[in-house]
């Protein structure tokens, strides 16, 4: 089974590490991934707020391209960025549910000499790893068990809300199951899908910083060595603002925030550079101490 892959802007820019680790990890699992050709903006960010129809059109074009590029009937389009994942899923949903949206968009696609027959399955890598590959298979392929590493799995809001396509909205477990399969421990915490501050970090920092502080603090309090994320924006918010949080809340915060795919890659024995671990601002204690599965704490 070959998966079409939609990177989206942030995986090519600020969050290159996510793309690197996704591709490397999937390669290590011998899962074929092919990038969508000539893809465009997923339609997230301001579009959705300003003019929904425009963002649907943008997303629909990517879906149409996916259908054209894949020979498979009903191809799977993998979207690691949860922003892209949500907009693509939402568009798919609206095209099926609302005739007027569907009419307008078809018109727009026609103008671009494209057509879309609603066959694409938009899926998140977590979904694919858990429900297609399966934890057993992954566990078997683990070369460097992450023994002793305590991970706080943080899913963010977008991959489970509003469409809980592959996990529970309130208490998701797919990432936890995956991370445990890698030999690491997961910390049980209630903030798995709580807001990270999102784009408020850029607009209303006085609101954004406290929100991500709540997460980092709680994860650290519960003894996590690292927070695992599935979203570029979450990763960015949680990692880059820790100094600000520290001074604002008068307590030292120093907690690495990595992509779950980076941890997956590590366990599968992928070299650190190919996982973009060197791009982390706060180095992964695990990586820093080198392999060997010894107990580690930040």
């Amino acid at each position, binding site marked *: 089974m070959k998966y079409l892959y939609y990177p989206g802007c942030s995986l090519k820019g600020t969050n290159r590490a996510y793309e690197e680790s996704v591709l490397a990890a999937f390669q290590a699992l011998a899962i074929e991934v092919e990038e969508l050709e000539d893809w465009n903006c997923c339609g997230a960010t301001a579009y959705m707020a300003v003019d929904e129809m425009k963002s649907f059109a943008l997303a629909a074009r990517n879906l149409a391209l996916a259908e054209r590029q894949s020979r498979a009937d009903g191809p799977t389009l993998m979207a690691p960025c949860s922003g892209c994942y949500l907009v693509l899923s939402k568009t798919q949903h609206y095209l099926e549910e609302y005739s007027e949206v569907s009419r307008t968009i078809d018109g727009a696609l026609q103008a671009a000499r494209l057509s879309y027959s609603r066959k694409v399955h938009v899926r998140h890598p977590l979904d694919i790893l858990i429900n297609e590959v399966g934890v057993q298979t992954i566990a078997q392929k683990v070369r460097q068990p992450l023994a002793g590493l305590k991970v706080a799995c943080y899913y963010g809001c977008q991959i489970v809300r509003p469409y809980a396509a592959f996990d529970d909205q309130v208490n998701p477990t797919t990432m936890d199951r995956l991370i445990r399969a890698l030999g690491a421990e997961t910390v049980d915490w209630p903030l798995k899908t709580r807001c990270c501050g999102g784009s408020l970090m850029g607009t209303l920092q006085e609101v954004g910083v406290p929100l991500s502080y*709540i997460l980092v603090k709680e994860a650290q309090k519960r003894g996590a060595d690292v927070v695992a994320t599935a979203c570029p924006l979450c990763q960015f918010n949680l990692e880059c603002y820790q100094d600000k949080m520290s001074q604002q809340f008068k307590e030292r915060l120093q907690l690495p925030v990595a992509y779950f795919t980076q941890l997956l890659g590590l366990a599968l024995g992928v070299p650190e550079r190919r996982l973009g671990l060197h791009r982390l601002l706060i180095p992964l204690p695990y990586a820093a101490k080198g392999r060997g599965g010894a107990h580690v704490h930040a």
Partner: protein
Amino acid sequence: MSTPEPKTNGAPKIGVYVCHCGVNIAAKVHIAEVIEFAQTLPFVTVAQEYKFMCSDPGQELIQKDLREGRINRVVVASCSPLMHEMTFRRATAEGGQNPFFFQMANIREHVSWVTADGHQATEKAKALIAAAVRRVAFHKPLEKKRVPVHPHVLVVGAGIAGIEAALKIADAGKKVYLVEREPTIGGHMAQFDKCFPTLDCAACILTPKMTQVCVHPNIELMTYSEVESVEPYDLRNFKVKIRRKARFVNEDTCTGCALCADVCPVSVLSEFDEGLGMRKAIYRPFPQAVPNIFTISRRGTPPCQAACSIHQNAQGYITLIAQGKFKEALDVILRDNPLPSICGRICTHPCTVNCTRADVDEPLSIPGLKRFITDLFPNYKLPQPAVERPEKIAIVGSGPAGLMCAYELRQRGFHPVIFEAQPVAGGMLSVGIPAFRLPRDVIKAEIDRLKEIGIEIKTNTPVGTAVTIEQLRKQYAAVFIGIGAHVERKLKVPGEALPNVWGGIEFLRKVNLEGPFKLGKKVLVIGGGNSALDAARTALRCGAEEVTIVYRRTRAEMPADPKEVEAAEEEGAKMLFLTAPKAILGNKETGVTALECLKMKLGAPDASGRPAPEPIPNSEFVLSCDAIIATIGQVPDLASLGGKLGIEMTKWGTFKADELTLETNMPGVFAGGDCVTGPDVVVNAMYAGKKAAISIDRYLNKVDMRAGREHEGPYRTEYAIDTSGTTVQRQIPMPAIELARRRTFDEVHTGYTQELAIAEAKRCLDCGICCDCRLCATICEAKAINYEMKDEIEEIVVGSIILATGFKPFDARRIPRYGYGKYPNVYTALEAERMTNSAGPTSGEIRLRDGSKPKAVGIIHCVGSRDRNYNSYCSRVCCLYSLKLAHLIKERTHAEVYNFYIDMRVPGKAYEEFYDRMLEEGIHFIRGRVAEVTDHAMTPDEEGKLVIRAEDTLIGVIRRIPVDMVVLAVGLEPQADADEVRRKFYISCGSGGFFLERHPKLAPVQTFADGIFIAGACQGPKDIQDTIAQAGATAAEALVLIDRGFVELEPNTAFIQEELCSGCKTCIPLCPFNAISFNAEKSVAVMNEALCKGCGTCVATCPSGAAQQHLFTDEQIYEEIEGVLSYV
């Protein structure tokens, strides 16, 4: 039966009466227009309108026109016939016509109420009236059939609803069967402490009623019973089958003294206490239970016992060990095993293979625990036989088969005499198994015990030479042959005859009988079974410096017990896999000097399912050695007696014996154990001995040797046990002597200490719940315990049935964000009820799991109710029971109590006042749905608390309330099996899944099935007050039927017109009530109208139109169809 000659009332003169139903119809349907239309219809002589046709003046209109001959048939266009058909039929009858010259047009429910546009409504009304007119012209006079109603009543479910209904009917002097599936009556109400709004004690008002039920002469109470099936007994009454589930306690003799529960070693979570407390395996849900009778929870034979060839009751003695009841444990062991100290050491314990504990971590060390007990009581005695019989029975061979057979026969009173060729008794146990695994004194002790109970053993007495089989057959009533398999298989390689080449058994026998002797420095052992390991470890103890086990497959295929393999390696034995002997090198003088071997590789699986080893060509190599021990299996010693016995043999050189009875071709001569099966494990030999003993007993009593023996021997039990949440706790290894001492013949394992044994025993998961230790039977003075009890089916006939099966609380786990099952101090309301109950698990104390008192408690309303994701309906009782709990919690703990509600719904007498009182008591009320319950603290005062996040919609802010305890006011749901049940009783369910009443307002306790009524929460969520009222209503309904004594049936039965019947029989199998039979000589179908319920399926099927249905004849329906279509 042929068509009745149609009576007629002359040319049709039809009166059409259109009802306004106040404005209900008139506001939508243009009555005048309809009247005008009706006048144009065929045969219509009168068309009138009236405000309320169902009123007396309305009916009078009809009667007048009938009496004065203006009309002779009636059409009323008003509401649904399900509502007033009876009314107008009566009017027609009182007007002097047959009531069935009437037809109704439903222009309210089907027209005015459902049509937006007045004009369209009018047109639809016309069409329906036209249809009614056309139809009624074809109506025939009919007589209603009267059927007697059986005076007995069945009440299903003995919660407060069932109890109330049953008492009412019984007090009226009628017989009631009250069926309850639980061991006690009382339902949910029995679990409560106080009832709102009066806060009177639930027990105080309920228990008197419960006892009344128990003693009432007119009530036959069937607890721990379920309705199996409900079938029509006749046209109107029911034949009900009731399953009386086996409680294993005799209801008549049990006095409820509770001594049994005191001695019962098994504790499980108490359902009645919502899992907050424990109960015993033999139990009574609560002290005031009615009936005051105990019940044993048994899930069936546990996997360990089922897997054991002799069905040793492992769970029994394990549970007792866990309780420190060691003497009792011994008794349980001796119940089915006369050689426990031997089995405890060397049995291959198949029991552990299916041990449920293995799903969690590792199986229990069942043999280890058995051994612990036998070590603890070294001088235990075997039970003396209860009977004595004259017959003597000869047993050849004193191995486990022979010993077990002798024991079983002795217990049956016979006098067994064992003939043993060897100087010592015990067979393979004594000669084949080394002392460091099975000390000699242990064997001796076991054999002495057998002697003590009167079993005679003649050693050095080989049968065939010393005595002949013929002599035995003459002098003894029967003979059992269990001579084992002592003759070595040969390697069949050159050099096998060289000195210092030993057979495994030969070697072990010599050591066991004559003591250790020097073998040489380097010893090779060939084979991969347990005896290979025994030989190797014995060789080491005989001073060999290097011992290597040569095996042609790999470790994975070794038949030996992995634990033994480990032990051997620990002691220094080496393993050489995928190697097979080719030739033994050496000469007479030097003896064996080396073994030439071949390398092997694994090929396709063979008969045993293991991959067959294949030699690798030219891979020969040589291993030097001083001695070789070949352990590749044995066969029975036939040379000595086989031939002389004249017993049939198999091609494998073993005795041929019947699989089930073990009888040989010689009558009265039985054989079993290794000499029949080939080398096998001890417990199977014992199983053979036992089987033979049973056969011999039957043989001598001249009863069928084969009947009912399926469950002898190992089998697999199939029931899933939920092991989730069981904490991992690996098997406790048995202490052993240090390696240094493993060059002597001291026993390697020293056995569990008391502490270890108890700890190990506590790992048991009580698969069977009741562990069958039978302590309760020993203590019960009333002798009420009966382990053999089976479910029984009782059949009753009743005329009415009242369903009062109640509700089940919403499962709070379905809403993960409220943390039930995740945070220990989140409780459901029912759990809180139990806590507040002075007879409950905390004797009325409200405390957290750690035992401390809560300082703040949050009660979350509408959990699972008023929520489209779960149940959209309101559960009605939650607001009030939440108020009640709030009051009780505050009263007992002085905690701050917060209620989180959407709306307070407190309608009902004195309810609002109760609410006010709670407000005055200072209970906090926050209006808003709770978002989540979390242990995520954001401020110091939230640390270690449960934080309830909710929007306060009154002040418009999000609030975080830290509390110690959360109570979830879970809603009421239909019983899990409500759908199954309602099918049994031919009734329907409403959208919420609750039983559906016949009419939401006018017939709230009736159902669409005649004579079946519903009361209480099974019909919809309701409080005790309403439940009692409904129960009374159902009682009244039932009593009405009984007092009238009969019901009139709609005369809509089918009939057959013989002259048209072609005798094709198509209708006969289609009738669900077997009302149609076939008259062979007339070759026509015959309808038994007494059985016909009037569905009309046969009529629709009849190809010749011979079958017809009163009130629904073809032409009546054709007319109706034309009617609705031809006019508008």
